[in-house]
């Protein structure tokens, strides 16, 4: 790897990236990358949702809190949504989320939204590799753990009304 390792970071550290991919475009594209045997960095772990419109900004926050160093969201290109406009809803929530993340001091490249069509297996490869490289330069996210893994106080059981209200307004 040609990128510089930040001071204090173990040289063999690998970021963990959670990817939320929509079923119809980006998940299919990542299957296509597989069928086409396009190798890429194994740092992403994909969670399949039916539509990028399903992605609650809290999923992203939860992923970061649980120890992800970055979150990648993949949806259909504008105008291509299988459900007509779920990706637009995703985009609006993403814009709001980015403001919130910036205020929380989370670096911009850590959370990324990409439109990847079902035929763009190569884009999955390119985006993943690029994102891994950028996050490697940033180093681990090192969020202070609020509670131990397995504790679900912050998760969906009792959503905090404040965040959800913001999510709904956009």
């Amino acid at each position: 790897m040609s990128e510089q390792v930040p001071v204090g970071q173990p040289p063999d550290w690998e970021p963990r990236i959670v990817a939320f991919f929509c079923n119809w475009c980006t998940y299919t594209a990542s299957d296509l990358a597989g069928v086409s045997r396009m190798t890429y960095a194994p740092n992403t772990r994909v969670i399949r949702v039916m539509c990028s419109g399903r992605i609650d900004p809290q999923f992203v926050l939860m992923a970061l809190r649980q120890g992800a160093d970055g979150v990648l969201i993949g949806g259909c290109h504008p105008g291509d949504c299988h459900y007509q406009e779920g990706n637009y809803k995703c985009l609006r929530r993403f814009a709001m989320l980015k403001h919130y993340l910036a205020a929380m001091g989370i670096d911009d490249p850590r959370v990324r939204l990409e439109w990847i069509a079902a035929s763009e297996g190569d884009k999955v490869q390119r985006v993943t590799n690029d994102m891994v490289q950028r996050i490697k330069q940033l180093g681990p996210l090192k969020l202070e753990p609020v509670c131990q893994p397995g504790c679900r106080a912050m998760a969906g059981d009792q959503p905090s009304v404040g965040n959800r209200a913001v999510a709904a307004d956009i």
Partner: protein
Amino acid sequence: MSQSPACPRIGVYVCHCGMNIAKQVAVEAVTEFAARLPGVAVARHYKFMCSDPGQELIQQDIKESGLERVVVASCSPLLHEATFRKACAAGGLNPFCFQMANIREQVAWVTADKGRATSKAKALIAAAVERVSRAQPLERKRLAVGDKVVIVGGGIAGIHAALTIADAGKKVYLVEREPTIGGHMAKFDKTFPTLDCAACILTPKMSSVKNHPNIELMSYSEVEKVEGFAGNFKITIQKKPRYVHEELCVGCGECVDACVFPKAKFPSEFDEGLALRKPVYMPFPQATPAVVVIDPNTCLQLTKGKCKQKCVEACQRGAIDLKQEPEQVEVEAAAVIVATGFKTFDPRGLPQYGYGRYGNVYTSLEVERMVNASGPTGGEVVLKDGAKPRSVAIIHCVGSRDKKTHPWCSRVCCMYSLKLAHLVKERSGADVFSFYIDMRTPGKGYEEFYDRLLEEGVHFIRGRVSHITDWAMTKAEEGKLVVSAEDSLIGVTRRIPVDMVILSVGLEPQPDAQEVRKKFNISCSQEGWFLERHPKLAPVATFTDGVWIAGACQGPKDIPDTVAQAGAAASEALALIDKGYVEIEPNTAEVDPEACSGCKTCLGMCPYHAIRRDEEKGVAVVNEALCKGCGTCVAACPSGAISQHMFTDDEIYQELEGILSYV
């Protein structure tokens, strides 16, 4: 790891997929890892989980070990989720108490390092195990389906599919945007490799379409809007004004003779511009429907508003109506077959071949018309000046197998070039030089046809033509078109003077393929061809249930393959109709009336109007039949009152935890 006492008993099955997974992922280590995950009662690995013994393994464990949840780590859920759900059901488990971990397409096939591939596989399996522990048993809802089919495109694919479905007793709406059906095939004289006459095999099918009681032919019409879902589509079709009442016109042609233009003046689309037509015309003698059409761009009355309207007078049946307006028709359909075909490459994009600059450089489609007995020259191969050519060059791969134009092989060009070589030789006796890169003749009787052409004395030269020029360097080249190419078999550059050049143009997607695909909510490959659900196992299905594709709109193909696809698409549409119902994936949204505040935020989120507010109770209600399961409303609900089955917040948070907590 905390584990609730009610944690269900989970079985994990890791598939080797032969060597596909096992080569990159240490399946034994992964299985041992899985066995230690909370709730896991059984963990096994097996060579092919999708095989019968693999599926029986699951069924047996459900029965003998009392499994309540199943995880299979193998290929993509888009490939085999249905298979394993059925296996679960056969074992007596609710099919939705199942989760797949995709360790083939998203791990083994894309990860170079074995150790890291194994780690990633572990993380994905942990995620699936955690998620499946929260899965709820669900039931699929059934909805009745209609029994009509809309077929878009009236080429050979659409025609064949329409006849197949109509013969099965179902109603078909065949929508064609041109004034006649027939598509590209109607323009050909002969078809390879048998050299049977295209019209002789096509036109009977065209008239069967017209006369079939179950087919409603909507020519000169385009699909405007598609609503609904598999089994219950609502399709709006716009009938373009042809300025002739189709039901009154008998195609006698009196109006054509009467037209104020004494002579045909405008290039005929059907004859590729080689012949002329009047503003009122019949595209070709066997046009179906056999009804004239008036071109709004050339008719004097329709362009300038001033004409003696002789055509109106001439028509004794009063069929001509120059005030006709576009008409919208709404039809219901259970299934849609998209068979919109292709377009040929425009060689003006390759100026070195001189198309448009030298009169005697033709495209293959123009020559198809020329050699057609009912074409502009009555089947004679002639030069622009009317003389017969003494030598003809045919250039393969124009707009194919070239990174500057299209990288793909258009599949039909070698064969139709051979056919044209034969026909040109037969009709004109000219010497034919065929310039090819590779001769591709895979098909029944195709290689034999090539052998026949070799014996007929066609000169085959292996080499891509660099340019065509009229600049003579020798006496023999004067007044000729000189074709330059490297003959790569003998390693010399050759200049061959000929009278006529035929460019074997490749196939490309229709220019409006993107708009069409959006209308039907289907995908395109990167090249712009419509994307099939699976390249091998679902070649005519799309990612949208109830919409099938057939023919060259899916990729270049010849007539036999097109007809085979049309038949396949027709039988799949019939299967849907005969089944009588569609099963709705139970991934719909549900509102918890206790938590809903009735704020109506979700109403605006739903593109299907599936949510309404029960005014009496003051809460939102989801109509399950309309909900498509995108989950957009779930993410928007400020009260967290909406959940999506199969994708609850709980399941996703649990999956997140699994994905990050162990590896």
